[in-house]
């Protein structure tokens, strides 16, 4: 299929359809409302479900109900809306229901702003809701990658029976880029007869299924949490993704950066190379699981003197990097979180202060 020029939000919407996800529930919020606007037209064309819910809280439970019935389903929102969905996400994780949640991040806290940011790193990777749970979090750096991650997100959600989050900054949703959709993508959800409340007749079963997150017996609750923990450990084994840039050199500094910010860092690294200074970068494509081994290895090489976390937040990723670097190299932060994306020149200037 030929490349077409598409806005990120619309490409994400189309990617879901091409992934065989024909069920979408959402509530409008800037900067991702184009997903809903696109799907309000597109879902009827493909015989899918589009519904604008009354709130993000309600939407998260529409997703839960649809997922619990065995359907492939997704929603999109932005930071304040994702906070409202965090309750539903906790219930879904507890009840082991798959779905894809897209967060096109804006600045915060509170209403913050409507411009791009990466301010929801902690929320997405550490604890988006109450209780002991995690989500697999993927961070695209281009519209094309957002499409590819959307397509991987549904099978991964079903593999783990857990919500998966696509964490894009506002630019990923708002910018237009050439994008190519792979041909013939539509796949049915994994067989879910063993757990989905799809009606016993549908499964030709006499056994009823129960989707729940309440375990009043302490041993049963502990066991459920052990099942969840085992899934998160498996994510760490099977589904860590990252990309290296300029790490085949004797780089003096290592940048760790993701999403749109990592593309600015590409330019900064190229600029410094022209100045005769080598800087390497590891770009996490999954934020949970974090590419711990790769960041540790890349930071620990003898020629690397310093590690820089460059992000559109006030340094939320620093803790993860420090965890990997284990105190053997200094970890510094540079970033902005008001809606301006730091320029390549600003990144270059910052790296110079470290060398």
């Amino acid at each position, binding site marked *: 299929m030929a490349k077409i020029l598409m806005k990120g939000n619309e490409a994400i919407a189309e990617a879901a359809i091409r992934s065989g996800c024909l069920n979408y529930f959402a509530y409008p919020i800037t900067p991702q409302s184009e997903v809903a606007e696109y799907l309000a037209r597109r879902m009827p064309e493909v015989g899918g479900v589009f519904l604008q819910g009354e709130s993000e809280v*309600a939407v998260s*439970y*529409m997703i*839960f109900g649809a997922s*619990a019935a065995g359907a492939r389903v997704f929603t999109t929102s932005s930071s304040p809306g994702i906070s409202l969905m965090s309750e*539903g996400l906790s219930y879904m994780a507890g009840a082991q229901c798959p779905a894809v949640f897209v967060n096109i991040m804006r600045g915060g806290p509170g209403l913050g702003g409507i411009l791009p940011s990466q301010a929801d790193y902690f929320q997405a990777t550490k604890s988006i809701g109450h209780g002991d749970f995690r989500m697999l979090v993927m961070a695209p750096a281009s519209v094309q990658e957002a499409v590819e991650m959307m397509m991987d997100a549904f099978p991964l959600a079903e593999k783990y029976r857990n919500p998966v989050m696509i964490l894009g900054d506002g630019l990923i949703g708002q910018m237009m880029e050439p994008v190519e959709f792979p041909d013939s993508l539509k796949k049915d959800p994994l067989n879910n007869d063993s757990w989905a409340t799809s*009606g016993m*007749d549908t499964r030709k079963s006499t056994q009823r299924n*129960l989707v*729940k997150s309440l375990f009043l017996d302490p041993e049963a609750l502990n066991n459920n949490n052990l099942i969840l923990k085992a899934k998160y450990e498996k994510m760490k084994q099977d589904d860590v993704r990252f990309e290296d840039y300029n790490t085949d050199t004797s780089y003096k500094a290592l940048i760790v950066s993701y999403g749109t910010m990592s593309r600015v860092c590409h330019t900064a690294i190229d600029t410094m190379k022209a100045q005769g200074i080598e800087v390497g970068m590891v770009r996490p494509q999954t934020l949970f699981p974090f590419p711990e081994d790769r960041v540790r290895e890349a930071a620990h090489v003898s020629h690397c003197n310093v590690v820089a976390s460059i992000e559109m937040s006030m340094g939320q990723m620093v803790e993860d990097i420090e965890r990997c670097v284990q105190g053997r190299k200094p970890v510094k932060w540079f970033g902005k979180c008001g809606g301006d994306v730091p320029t390549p020149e600003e990144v270059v200037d910052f790296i110079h202060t470290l060398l």
Partner: protein
Amino acid sequence: MGKTFVRPEALAQQVTHYCPGCTHGVIHRLVAEVIDELGIRGRTVGIAPVGCAVLAYNYFTFDFQEAAHGRAPAMATGMKRVRPDLMVFTYQGDGDLASIGMGEIIHAANRGEKFTTIFVNNAVYGMTGGQMAPTTMPGQRTTTSPFGRNTEDVGMPIKIAELLAALQTPGYIVRQAVLKPKYIVKAKKAIKQAFQYQLEGKCFSLVEIVSTCPTNWGLTPVESIKWAEENMLPYYKLGEYKTPEDV
């Protein structure tokens, strides 16, 4: 001669966790009888609330989901939209539906979602230990209205059936009770009608059921029934508030 009173297939054989004199058991049985009579057990999915009935799924023999507090109508919406062939009902108490879940129930009713809600109104929070609900009667003592519900301070009890019947979207909205056999017969009829409308894909349906909570009312089961008849029924009047035929 065969047995004339047997346990419905849709009802599980379980020791109840509900308190002595609680009317949830009666309502569970009515729902199960209707499901058996309509022959829909294999295509029915129930949604349990948060509250005493959170464990409702222990008493039924078909698929069930468990919602967060107040969110059952949103879950039912999601499920019914993606699987219109399923028969979906939510089973909710007054704290769940009339307080924290008010937004979800109003919008589900207003969109005309094709599921059924069984709304159990016993004028008090049960599971958390007898706190004031939006449906608590004026002057009624609860653990959070120890001097009686002061309507100057917290307003009058909410009449859910009347509130939802005021929406312009067609629906089936009815209030019945399970205080005595004469009421129970009508309550079952209403539940069956609600499920039938859903089977026909006709409209949203809600059956409000005036119920009792002897434990949290501090009354015996018999006194509770008398109290509900004397205090609740004059305020929560029984009857059909809306049918899909109404314009």
